[in-house]
């Protein structure tokens, strides 16, 4: 039976055999289709969509910051507005832009790289997505509420106690921050558990751990960092929330609390967090450089191992953010040395990337430009990191613009460049179209120049004593020119970003169509047609070598024989298993959102008044429980697809399977 050409089936055609109270929604189109989707590629796309949106928002906030600082004693913004802006800029960029953008690639690319048809728990994946969206909403909700009593978060992105206590910021702004981050934590942990199980358990036959593509390895390590570091901030936030709403004394000096504890708990999370931001980027770079050098990654095992070493060491250095808190000599020395040690595994990666280029045939395509830009910029950012690690020098640099320069070099020159490279690199796979080389490279150069003009002068500003988080400065301190320069740079950077986005949007609709595997790729995702079908692999591939697809391309007959045999086997076992879509993850997240709004927006300002708070929270809790209940009743059922040899769906049966 010849059905539709695509694998996108309608609900009627696949009504389940058994009558049921709540039939599985199987719609594949329209808004409903997006809400119920459990397809890792669509979820990845949604992550990317929201992340890029919030990147623009965060960038817009940055431009406002820079405009305020363009000239001394500017009064474009009030102190209050400025403080809100940098808090939200930092929080947005880290939690709502870079992390979810990495997550977009984890979702979209990782299962394809290991030869899987989906992640291990597709509905949990949808739940992570929607909970992330809920967290983003809570974080930003304050913009739209009365500023005097609500307002967006304004305690700085690391929200040091006791400034964030009710005594000093009685508004709800901090409650939104607490709840927002809490939800983002839930989303990230759930997603990461899923990725860990997927990578460890869902690999195609022959895909041993030491054959995993480096990007997948970095996904795994990042996921571990997330599940092991987020609990620390979750607990810190719980304690803060208790202090704010239930009068506990965790950070309350009058009861004997020690606010320094917040800093420790925050940075126990915070430092691994920065590696959560950079490791996926390093993974992307480790895919792009070999592809465009047309040779395997230099020293694969040691690159993988150094990634793990960075992740592990990352848990032992948190106090380098606290060198100025008077920890005493021994602790300071220990953390300084541990921090420096991280330069070694990081250096290994840089060396191996250069080794990869060495002797290759470098094709200077746009992704490659961004990747090379990454290596340069990240190196500079890393060096200023080592300067911070030298604790006595850091006593002068901490909380100055030198830190701002350091981390924007690693975050933009590092993480962001790699993510932009990744978008260019995988765009043809995701959408079947390719960005024009000219416009791609142009956006690269404008971003590259703008970035350096913005942030290089900040090193000098910091060394010349300009503290961060200051909405104004006096004209007599020698900071005028570098600030002006930085602001001009940020406009250039903004222009570059704008070009980048316009080009992407244009390409999405009108760009040049390309055939599969346009870069002559090395890893399995390139073996798929673009865009990949819902079931990813017609036949689960058998992996024979590290660069699996490269090997397949050079052993075509052997692979064809193998695949035909596997296809027969699979058909005999019922065909391709596909999970049903489900609305319950969305409902669960919706319940969480409602509950969190109740909990943050109506937290008692001082006194008890818990009426509306309790009410709304309970409604949210009930919705959440309903979601979970029906979700668990659904069981992991799905339907089967059978394909003909051209990949058309020839038959499918909705027989529930386990």
């Amino acid at each position: 039976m010849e059905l539709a050409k695509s694998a996108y089936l309608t609900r009627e055609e696949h009504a389940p055999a058994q009558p049921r109270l709540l039939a599985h929604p199987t719609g594949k189109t329209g808004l409903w289709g997006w809400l119920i989707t459990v397809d890792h590629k669509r979820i990845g796309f949604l992550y990317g969509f929201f992340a890029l949106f919030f990147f623009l928002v965060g960038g817009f906030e940055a431009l406002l910051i820079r405009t305020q600082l363009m000239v001394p004693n500017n009064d474009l913004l009030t102190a209050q507005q400025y403080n809100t802006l940098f808090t939200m800029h930092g929080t947005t960029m880290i939690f709502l832009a870079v992390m979810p953008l990495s997550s977009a690639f984890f979702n979209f690319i990782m299962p394809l790289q290991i030869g899987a048809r989906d992640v291990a728990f597709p509905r949990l994946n949808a739940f992570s997505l929607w909970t992330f969206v809920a967290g983003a909403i809570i974080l930003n909700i304050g913009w739209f509420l009365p500023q005097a009593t609500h307002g967006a978060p304004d305690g700085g992105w690391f929200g040091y106690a006791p400034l964030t206590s009710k005594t000093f910021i009685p508004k709800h702004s901090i409650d939104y921050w607490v709840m927002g981050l809490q939800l983002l934590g839930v989303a990230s942990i759930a997603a990461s558990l899923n990725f860990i199980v997927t990578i460890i358990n869902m690999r195609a036959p022959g895909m041993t751990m030491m054959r995993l593509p480096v990007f997948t390895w970095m996904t795994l390590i990042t996921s571990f960092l997330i599940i092991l570091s987020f609990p620390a901030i979750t607990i810190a936030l719980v304690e803060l929330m208790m202090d704010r709403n239930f009068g506990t004394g965790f950070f309350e000096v009058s009861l004997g609390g020690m606010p320094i504890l917040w800093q420790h708990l925050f940075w126990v999370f915070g430092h691994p967090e920065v590696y959560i931001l950079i490791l996926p980027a390093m993974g992307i770079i480790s895919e792009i450089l070999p592809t465009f050098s047309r040779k395997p990654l230099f020293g694969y095992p040691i690159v993988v191992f150094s990634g793990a070493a960075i992740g592990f060491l990352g848990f032992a250095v948190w106090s380098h953010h606290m060198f100025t808190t008077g920890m005493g000599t021994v602790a300071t020395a220990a953390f300084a040395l541990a921090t420096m040690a991280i330069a070694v595994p990081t250096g290994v990666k840089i060396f191996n990337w250069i080794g990869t280029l060495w002797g290759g045939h470098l094709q200077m395509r746009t992704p490659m430009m961004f990747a090379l830009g990454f290596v340069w910029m990240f190196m500079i950012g890393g060096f200023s990191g080592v300067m911070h690690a030298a604790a006595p020098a850091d006593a002068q640099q901490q909380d100055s613009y030198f830190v701002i320069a350091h981390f924007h070099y690693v975050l933009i020159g590092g993480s962001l460049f790699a993510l932009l490279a990744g978008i260019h690199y995988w765009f043809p796979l995701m959408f079947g179209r390719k960005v024009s080389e000219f416009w791609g490279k142009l956006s690269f150069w404008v971003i590259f120049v703008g970035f350096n003009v913005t942030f290089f002068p900040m090193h000098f500003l910091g060394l010349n004593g300009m503290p961060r988080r200051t909405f104004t400065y006096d004209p007599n301190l020698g900071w005028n020119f570098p600030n002006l320069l930085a602001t001009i740079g940020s406009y250039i950077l903004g222009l570059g970003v704008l070009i980048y986005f316009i080009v992407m949007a244009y390409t999405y609709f009108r760009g040049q169509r390309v055939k599969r595997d346009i870069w002559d790729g090395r890893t399995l995702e390139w073996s798929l047609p673009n865009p990949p079908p819902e079931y990813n692999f017609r036949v689960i591939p058998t992996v024979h070598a590290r660069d699996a697809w490269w090997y397949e391309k050079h052993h075509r007959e052997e692979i064809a024989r193998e695949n035909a045999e596997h296809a027969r086997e699979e058909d005999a076992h019922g065909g391709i298993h596909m999970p049903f879509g489900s609305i319950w993850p969305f409902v669960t997240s919706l319940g969480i959102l409602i509950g969190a709004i109740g909990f943050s927006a109506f937290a008692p300002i001082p006194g008890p008044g818990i009426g509306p708070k309790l009410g709304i929270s309970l409604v949210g809790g009930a919705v959440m429980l309903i979601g979970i209940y029906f979700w668990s009743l659904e069981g992991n059922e799905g339907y089967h697809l059978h394909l003909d040899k051209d990949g058309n769906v020839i038959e499918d049966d909705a027989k529930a399977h386990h």
Partner: protein
Amino acid sequence: MSAPSHAVAARHDDSHDVSKFQIYVQIAMLLAVITGIEIVIVYIPFAKWIVVTTLVVLSAVKFLYVIFYFMHLRWDKPFCTILFFIGLVLAGGTAWALLMLFGAEASLPLAK
């Protein structure tokens, strides 16, 4: 997805299945006894360090029995053990480091 026949065979020479019930009950008794010892020992006027060490060791024994038997790490693939111990060791290490940091003289809170 058929279970390979050797797996089925392997299952049968696993004698632990037969006596699992007894094992569990015995371990539960052991754990109860250890708990009893713990409660008693804190009241015995030994040197402080002896009591602390004993308590830590006894708790660790209970802990290990539960994870290796009740949670059958003993019979599962070692990977599960590794996975859990990554978290356990990091959590323990972090807790230890925090206690050291706060124990250092430089971080004593202000005397009132």
